[in-house]
């Protein structure tokens, strides 16, 4: 009996030590969750300074983009404790705020003297506020991003191609300023043989499952004059979503897909685009600014081989918004540590280093610095893009709204079903149904 009691006491002590040790480890640890992509590596590097200053060990959970939303939203909704900090997509903010998944940061910002006016207005609006545009902050703008374009500068500079292009289109082969010009360039390169290899015009987004084709097509739609509502906040979509300009934009995107993409490019997003560009298959690639630092460093197609340009205008200059804010997960066991990280991250010096490492700062002090435009070959384009960004619905029901658009666009652009007008008309029906369920439109 005595032996049994001794054994039980030993097990109890061991368990206590283990639990106490774990609590101590949790208090000195922070887990930051984000997507697995180039900027995440830059953040790991940047966070080493925070570890030195605070004594807190940083852990990272990076999830590939196609699974990022599912994984993180499941994590938060199930009350998981994996993440203390989350760099979540801008569209999640409505749902995360309403469901109490994020900590509201207003009081913390006031206490620490962090001013939202110090950040680019478009990023504060998109990454931090809910309800949109109100001074209710759920995140600190962390990673500015927009959809832009990469092109093979070395191919564009070839004298024989320059001459041929000029004789054909009566202008220089250069960075396209409009979508019409972009299509001409793409057609020019499509099927051409360069350095003994058949190449294609452009890699654009056509992915069906997550958000790809919506992010790609809206890059054209916004430039052609597409709007979500006739008046912001009215949820009146008739005449905006399916306006003649929107129809033209969608028809254009389909024509670009049909004329100038590589074979088999029916379900492609950022990863497929990067593969096509890096393997020398395409002359131009639509993709996020976030990939530009990595591409510029690429041994094969980086440096002098690559150039960057902002999304072309047509009727208006506009770019599809990417990027994210950093939020504190309400369920964290280390609230103080998480807030300390936000405070540290908001500092000007840290933001400058963030930009130098390959992250995209949203801080005015970094963006308005006179040396910023020349600091990287894509810096000036980034400023241009951020001046005209437009984002998808940021409603709590964004997932249903996004999936409806994915379906209607893919059905029309890739599967050749119906007309652009029909696709956008059906989209209004889908979205109206969602907003009725949400109580935003009366039945």
């Amino acid at each position: 009996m005595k032996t049994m009691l001794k054994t039980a006491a030993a097990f109890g002590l061991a368990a206590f030590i283990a639990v106490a040790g774990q609590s101590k480890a949790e208090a000195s640890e922070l887990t930051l969750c984000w997507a697995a992509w180039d900027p995440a590596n830059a953040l790991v590097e940047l966070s080493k300074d925070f570890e030195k200053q605070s004594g807190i060990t940083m852990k990272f959970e990076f999830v590939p983009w196609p699974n990022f939303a599912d994984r993180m939203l499941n994590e938060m909704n199930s009350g998981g404790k994996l993440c203390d900090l989350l760099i979540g997509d801008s569209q999640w903010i409505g749902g995360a705020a309403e469901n109490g998944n994020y900590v509201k940061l207003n009081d913390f910002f006031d206490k620490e003297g962090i001013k939202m006016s110090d950040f680019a207005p478009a990023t504060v609006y998109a990454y931090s506020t809910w309800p949109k545009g109100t001074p209710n902050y759920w995140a600190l703008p962390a990673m500015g991003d927009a959809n832009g374009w990469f092109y093979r500068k070395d191919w564009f500079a070839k004298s024989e191609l320059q001459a041929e292009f000029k004789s054909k289109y009566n202008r220089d082969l250069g960075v396209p300023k409009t979508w019409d010009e972009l299509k001409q360039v793409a057609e020019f390169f499509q099927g051409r043989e360069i350095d003994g290899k058949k190449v294609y015009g452009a890699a654009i987004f056509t992915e069906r499952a997550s958000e790809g084709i919506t992010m790609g097509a809206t890059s054209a739609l916004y430039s052609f004059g597409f709007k979500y509502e006739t008046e912001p906040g009215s949820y009146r979509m008739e005449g905006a979503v399916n306006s003649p300009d929107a129809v033209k934009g969608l028809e254009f995107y389909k024509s670009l897909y049909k004329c100038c993409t590589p074979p088999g490019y029916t379900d492609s997003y950022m990863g497929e685009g990067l593969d096509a560009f890096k393997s020398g298959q395409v002359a131009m690639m639509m993709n996020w600014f976030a990939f530009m630092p990595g591409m510029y460093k690429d041994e094969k197609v980086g440096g002098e081989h690559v150039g960057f340009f902002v999304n072309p205008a047509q009727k208006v200059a506009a770019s599809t918004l990417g990027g994210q804010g950093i939020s504190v997960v309400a369920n964290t066991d280390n609230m103080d540590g998480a807030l300390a990280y936000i405070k540290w991250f908001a500092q000007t010096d840290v933001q400058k280093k963030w930009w130098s490492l390959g992250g995209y700062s949203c801080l005015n002090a970094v963006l308005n610095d006179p040396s910023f435009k020349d600091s990287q070959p894509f810096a000036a384009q980034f400023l241009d893009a951020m001046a005209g960004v437009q984002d998808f619905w940021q409603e709590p029901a964004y997932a249903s709204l996004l999936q409806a658009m994915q379906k209607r666009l893919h059905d029309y652009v890739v599967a050749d079903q119906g007309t652009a007008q029909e696709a956008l008309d059906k989209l209004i029906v889908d979205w109206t149904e969602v907003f009725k369920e949400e109580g935003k439109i009366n039945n």
Partner: protein
Amino acid sequence: MSMATTEDGTAGRIADQAARGTTPAIARRIRGLSDKAIAWLFIAPTILLLLAINIFPLIWTIYLSFTNYQANRPNRPITHVGTKWYQDILSSPDVWAAMQATAHFVFWTILLQTLIGFGLAYLIDRKFRGHAFWTTIILIPMMLSPAVVGNFWKFLYQPQMGLFNYIVSFFTGIEPSSFEMLGSVSLSPWSIIIVDTWMWTPYVMLICLAGLRSIPDYIYEAAEVDRASPLRQFWSITLPMALPFIMLAVLFRGIENFKMFDMVNLLTGGGPGSTTEVASITLKREAFEKWRTGYSSAFAIILFVAVFGLANIYVKALNRVKQR
């Protein structure tokens, strides 16, 4: 007789040992229970487990199907919507398009797998030289994981470097990159039918082979005495006697393919557009991409009732064939 005695003796010894091992208190308590109560005592854990992991989720799903619940928005108040989701689903053109895509997939895969599977079983049953080796080779595809098969065929179908396009090009002279098996509206449904047939025909073949080998030789010997031709033997003996096995294979493959998800998701993801969006892909999109938990619960119940109902009708037909 002696064997039974031995078995009785062994069982008796084990029972005696068990009785000696039981503490008197427990033994007293058990002695006070009826046979029925003891039977319930033994099956209760299994029933509780079944209730917890099968019956409760089913009842919960039925409940959710009458609400507007969304799993990604747990704080949203749950309201009862009556039969709205059932009405919406049954009147939705998109759902019917998905059911049509499912029917197309199920019909053609079953037809091809049954024809090819039975044909292969018939050949293997001849017991030619090396038939064991060929049986093993034929069985390989069904032993692979659907995830491996999906990715493997995705590369084969790649228009610029895929082997499939090159083989088609070799026999037809068509430019390999001029057609896309997975990206074309007309070809993509067939691309998944080809892969499913490649993978699961061996399974049908195995069941048919079991059927063919269960036919006694003396029936064929009697038919030969009666001078029945090989064709006559096939139609009058082989096919009718193997039919219950063929029908069983059709039932298994039918149920499996009705709820097919993994391979379609890997190969086309339901695209291009919604061309290969079978019912299970639609269900996944509603449940885990749009997060319409109530709606998707109703859809799951409709699919469950459809599969359960069709399978029941089919099993009755199968029993009738067996009794003949």
